[in-house]
């Protein structure tokens, strides 16, 4: 790896860190100005002023804001996200467990969405302007317009209620409809939510990929390849696909990040205990350590995935180091 690439990498890593620190400050400020008080939220309608004051003190909510921010960041740096204010459980463990669930849902959505959208994008780009392109692009636009919960309920109505192929609940329930054994029984409840999330991803990914392919097909080197007599699958596999990888990686990274952070609506529809649901539950209770940890982890996912996309671009796009060097 050249010095230039290394410098590029270091540069990206540094900006990722700066972004994360900025995000942590934003998260902290946001949780500070969230209306409502943790003590009141915990005690509920039964709160007396004395009980609220005692609880605030016990929770350390009476300390100055900067002090609490530094405390928090200091803990995060050594992997200590603190304890949940409402349940006293370890936040890191709580978040990791839910992150795994959300990641498997998002991963499955991407596994469904990417092959589907890239192949659809190829077909649409190769038949640009013809009816097939119009149909595919129209379909992508349609799924982009329909809200996730509507897609989710439509799928439930057809595949869970009428056909009974898949359960309508994404959590594994012993004795639920359509549960088999082993790996399939783990996957089965995830199918409908993953397809729902996948369809939303398809619309974004397919349209971006189609634009990138159209763009590539007009490049001089493709024209050159055509002049040399390269046709069909060979043209696509050897000439278009490598040029496409950087943009697909970027789209994929954004899609995956979206699926991680945007799964919350799908989680609600399918009663799936993911990170989004955890975040919502704790926002309602003003359980700040958990809210901060969830938000920071999601932000870190975004940054990390973008970083990985940059790496891919670096590997496959020969132009990049020069561009950085200028």
């Amino acid at each position, binding site marked *: 790896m050249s010095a230039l690439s290394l410098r590029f990498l270091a540069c990206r890593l540094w900006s990722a860190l700066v972004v994360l620190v900025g995000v942590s400050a934003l998260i902290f400020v946001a949780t500070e100005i969230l209306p*409502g008080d943790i003590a009141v939220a915990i005690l509920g309608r039964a*709160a*007396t002023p004395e009980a609220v004051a005692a609880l605030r003190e016990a929770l350390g909510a009476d300390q100055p804001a900067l002090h609490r921010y530094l405390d928090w960041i200091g803990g995060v740096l050594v992997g200590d996200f603190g304890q949940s204010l409402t349940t006293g459980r370890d936040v890191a463990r709580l978040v990791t467990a839910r992150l795994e669930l959300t990641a498997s849902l998002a991963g499955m959505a991407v596994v469904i969405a990417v092959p589907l959208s890239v192949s659809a994008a190829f077909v649409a780009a190769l038949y640009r302007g013809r009816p097939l392109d119009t149909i595919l692009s129209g379909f992508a636009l349609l799924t982009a317009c329909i809200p996730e919960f509507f897609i989710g309920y439509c799928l439930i109505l057809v595949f869970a209620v009428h056909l009974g192929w898949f359960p309508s*609940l994404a959590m594994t*329930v012993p004795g*639920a409809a359509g549960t088999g054994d082993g790996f399939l029984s783990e996957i089965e409840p995830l199918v409908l939510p993953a397809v729902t999330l996948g369809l939303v991803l398809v619309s974004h990914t397919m349209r971006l990929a189609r634009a990138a392919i159209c763009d590539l097909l007009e490049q001089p080197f493709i024209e050159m390849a055509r002049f040399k007599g390269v046709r069909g699958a060979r043209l696509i596999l050897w000439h278009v696909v490598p040029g496409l990888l950087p943009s697909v990686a970027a789209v994929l990274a954004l899609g995956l990040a979206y699926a991680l952070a945007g799964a919350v609506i799908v989680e609600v529809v399918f009663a799936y205990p993911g990170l989004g649901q955890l975040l919502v*539950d*704790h926002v309602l209770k003003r359980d700040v350590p958990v809210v901060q940890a969830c938000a920071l982890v999601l932000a870190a996912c975004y940054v990390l995935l973008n970083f990985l996309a940059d790496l891919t671009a670096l590997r496959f796009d020969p132009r990049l180091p020069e561009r950085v060097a200028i």
Partner: protein
Amino acid sequence: MPIRRISRRALLSGALGIPLSTIIPGAVKAQGSNIRTRGGHLRVGLNAGSATDSLDPVRFYSSYQSIVGYSFANNLVEIGDTGELIPELAESWESDTNFMRWKFRLREDVTFHHGKSLSSEDVIYSLQRHMQPESGSGGQPYLRDVIEMRSDGPKEVIFLLRRPQVSFPYFLSDYHLLITPADLSPDAGVGTGAYLTERFEPGVVWEGRRNTGYWKSDRANVDTVSLLVINESLARLAALRSGSVDVINQVDPGVAPALENDNTTQLVQSRGRSHVTFPMQMHVQPFANPQVRTALKLLFDRQAIVDQVYNGYGQIGNDHPISPADPFYSEIGQRSPDPDLALSLLRRAGVDQPIVLHASDIIPRGIQLAETFQAHATRIGVDLRVRRHPQDGYWSNVWAREPWCLALWSGRPTPEMMFSVAYASNASWNETGWESERFDFLLSEAGRESNADTRYEIFSEMQELVRDDCGTVIPVFLDWLDAARSRVRGLAPSIHDELLGKRVAEKVWLEGA
């Protein structure tokens, strides 16, 4: 299907230490087969679970937690499906003649899940935790009058009260006041109940296995129970219809008729005590003016609200919190809408600013309800505006803070419980700031009155006082709507609460299990 009303006399005799038989005459009649079958796995899809939930009864605040609580633990007394008092962990009770010293005798044959025998120290330990001022327990108001609890041997507990309280045993039926063992952490999920806690993932699921030595021989029919959190109403419905769960609660009134007509499901409609209130801050203008308050009570067509907003699944209210299904419901006469009188009262009061009503969907169909009010007001030219609020933070930021808003109450087993938590001048949840000397006097009178007819007279006058003077509109009592797959048996209406008074896990059985 309306449920049989229990007579006032029977209701009272239960409170006074002559417990009714545990078999409720004719109240619970399951559809189809009445022969209880043992076994099977029951899956219940429930609303209002959160990742912040705990198994400690002091920390209970939601319907989900109370249903979990009643699956692994018991109260001293139970409220039956017609609202009557049933002995639970206490086999009998008695009081002195002025109802200030109560003695509860515990059952002999009860042990906790970990083998410890139930004793008076467990009862005192469990209840004492709610009485700590900083506990923040929702059960605190019911123990406020308790000065002292002491054990009289291992099986007897004596309560000394600050003032006469003839229906004190009812107070001990509150879902927070579950009995947990004194030698274990209160959030261990260990009790004397029908199911042993196998797994608890807050906001996801609670799972239980049958307590083979359960002391109620006719209960705990299914082998295992899963109480699943499905907060979204449509998702609960989909889970029921696709067979992923057997029972759900809080069915949306809009889709309820579809369940009634489906032969794979059953809808259980309970006429209950849950109601929506519209509290006005009585020291804030324009609501400080009695003419304005009366006008706002006269403005609305209640039957239209029940029919349009709740699809008919409710009963009209009479601006006081006692349900028409309650044996103490007074025949003082239903207030009927009179928009013309309302308009002239508002004109006379000189209201020139728009009246603002704060609403949220944390109350079932709250926004739609407020907008229907607005429509009724606009029809006669009254400028009423609706401010919408998110569900998040509604109880701490809007309720009882904004001059006029919506609120939701689940109702209480006796009128004095309802009146003392929310209508007495010094009540912690007095949401209007209403103060009435006469009302407070009547409330303390009711505490020492054991004659059912006299109590009816007292409660009747109290209902009239709230209806006419208190700054609240109570337009509707909401029905509890539960639904189940048709193989679920024993799910019947209950005046007390949803899902068989929240004791669904130990009361139902599965056909063909």
